[in-house]
């Protein structure tokens, strides 16, 4: 195959592919459609036979071309909107239609592509376009239902056109009749035949303009409706948000009330706890004092600092037999007899008696009669035991005649 043949074969193949184009969009299931804006793929739209799909694209640049391609790359629909603000097209694809709507603004453009089932009468229809310049191109009369033949539709279309022409003529004649009845215009009138044709052309142009205006109006109305619906939805969402907020506030107030009650209760409990603590501390102090009384004097230094603090109310070094605290009322006095080891200096004896805040009575054969005041928690036995453990004490007894300790 030489060069020329090779190129010719390739050209023939390409022409064959192009010949398939007009009919191929009707026999292929679209599946996943790709949307190209200004020759760039901006997304895909999943389409099935049953339902319909809609895609909206907004861009910062003006939209000049929109192409719809199948997953295998076949171009099945496109719309060109060069220098136009708004343009719409409805393109048949099998038993579905693709509606492309382009809307260009100063700050960019938006495209809406809808894929939906075609109405029966529009399944065989040709593309319909509405834009800002050209008027809608009317679809030629084609059979839309199988039981109607082409000729029937042609006749219907002919009748429709004839009716439209009669209506236009009637309007023109009516306008002319008005003009005849009115004062003559400043410019000379043309011949009747020329005037009628001219008026007819003018009327057609006016009708086209009105149709164009109506199309724009319809598009504007649709836009406004969409905006209103969006605003209503936003308003509904706002109401829901406010209701939610009010509900939340009510719940918050309720919780705050409950927390206040709990706080008051806790406060009450805390006060009760404080009372209990005070009482416990008091009892603890008394127990500590009692414990200290039971300890020998040489172990007094081993009393922990905390216990020492608790017994600071005792003035003397013999903490077990201290002055009664101001808040602890003393008991009745306790009298006993005490004897000391031999050679114990009188001073040591007096010191001890002074230390235990004793009041000395008479002395008898080395026995000293001493009287002390005991606290509530102190018992005479404990006091005697503690006293017996003192170094200089030889013996302690409550009665000289009957009992002798040690």
């Amino acid at each position: 195959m030489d060069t020329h043949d090779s190129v010719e074969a390739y050209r023939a193949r390409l022409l064959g592919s192009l010949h398939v184009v007009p009919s191929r969009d009707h026999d292929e299931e679209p599946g996943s459609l790709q949307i190209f804006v200004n020759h760039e793929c901006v997304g895909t739209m999943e389409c099935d036979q049953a339902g319909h799909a809609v895609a909206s694209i907004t861009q910062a640049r003006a939209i000049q071309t929109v192409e719809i391609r199948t997953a295998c790359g076949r171009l099945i629909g496109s719309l060109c909107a060069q220098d136009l603000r708004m343009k719409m097209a409805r393109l048949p694809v099998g038993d579905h239609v693709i509606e492309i709507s382009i809307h260009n603004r100063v700050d960019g453009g938006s495209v809406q592509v809808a894929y939906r089932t075609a109405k029966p009468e529009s399944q065989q229809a040709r593309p319909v376009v509405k834009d800002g310049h050209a008027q809608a191109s009317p679809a030629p009369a084609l059979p839309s239902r199988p039981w109607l033949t082409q000729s029937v539709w042609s006749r219907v279309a002919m009748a429709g056109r004839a009716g439209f022409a009669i209506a236009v003529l009637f309007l023109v004649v009516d306008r002319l009749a008005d003009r005849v009845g009115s004062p003559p215009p400043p410019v000379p009138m043309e011949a009747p035949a020329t005037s009628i044709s001219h008026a007819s052309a003018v009327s057609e142009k006016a009708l086209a303009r009105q149709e164009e205006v109506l199309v724009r109006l319809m598009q504007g109305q649709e836009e406004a409706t969409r905006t209103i619906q969006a605003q209503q939805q936003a308003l509904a969402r706002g109401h829901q948000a406010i209701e939610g907020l009010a509900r939340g506030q009510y719940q918050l107030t309720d919780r705050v009330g409950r927390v206040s009650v709990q706080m008051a209760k806790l406060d009450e409990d805390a006060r009760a706890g404080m009372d209990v603590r005070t009482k416990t501390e008091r009892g603890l102090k008394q127990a500590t004092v009692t414990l200290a009384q039971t300890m020998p004097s040489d172990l007094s230094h081993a009393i922990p600092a905390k216990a020492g603090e608790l017994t600071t109310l005792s003035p003397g070094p013999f903490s077990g037999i201290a002055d009664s605290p101001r808040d602890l009322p003393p008991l009745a006095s306790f009298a006993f007899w005490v004897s000391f080891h031999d050679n114990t200096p009188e001073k040591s004896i007096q010191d001890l008696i002074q230390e235990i805040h004793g009041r000395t009575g008479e002395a008898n054969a080395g026995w000293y009669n001493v009287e002390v005041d005991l606290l509530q928690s102190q018992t005479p036995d404990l006091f005697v035991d503690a006293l017996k453990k003192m170094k200089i004490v030889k013996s302690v007894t409550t009665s000289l005649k009957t009992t002798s300790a040690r």
Partner: protein
Amino acid sequence: MVDRRDVTARLSQLVMTVDEYERLMTEALPHLLNHATTQTRRFLRETGQWADDVCHEKLALRWGYELVERFLMYGRTEIPCRPLFFFDSLIAKYFSQPEPFCYDKELLSPLGRFLEGLTSRAVISRDALMALFYHLYGFGQSQVAKVLGLGTTETQRVYKNFERWRRNGWQRAVDEVGITQEDLLDIESHKHRYPDQFHAEADRLSRIVQAHYRKSEPEHFPCLSRQQWAHLFKEGYGYDYRVWHLALCRDCLSEVCDVHQGDAHDAPTPQLDLRIRPLLNGRLVESYHSVDH
């Protein structure tokens, strides 16, 4: 000659209905293809990218074909119009874009034309886009789904893409790009005889082609960092972005595969392993192709 002038005259006249337009287009297709090819040839000459050889003639034909394909579809929504004027405006608009074609002298070899044709097809065809993963890296459907982190529904679509591509997509793409059976045999022979040289050339050319066609993505689709890719896959968004970008950017694909391997997803490694023909039920399309021709 008379017919040609007649067609030109009719194409310059106002067409009022879609039927009239389609009838005229069917008759005027050869003329339209010639017209678009001539315009393309002229553009290439004026930009210093032309040479009188088969490759350039085929290139002009191919781009002319793409312009005619677009015109046929656009024109249906431009009625009433003068078709030839509208066609010229479309051509002028297309050529006024920055770098309208992927032209590089190195891409005029059979391998370059194959890679360029395949990638240009991937820009307009989802099937070809998915097939790129197979032709460049040898990934199967499941591997593509794994790399792209697709769900069940999207994975099913990948299987459909592969199936359509095997059935007729590859053949149609090869035909429309102008790759002949001789070209395919030449590429395969080169691959077999000089594997290292072939691999190096394929690597260089595929990078040129991918860099050009990646521009056709939307502007908000740049390359992402490793962290951004990891976040995108973790949060599960940007499916279109994954497919579009990763098929056309080997560096990002390597990053993503690396991220997947770090997450122990058993992801394949994207190393260039050029496959010329798709698999057809376990065998190559070669036999299928030879039956057709």
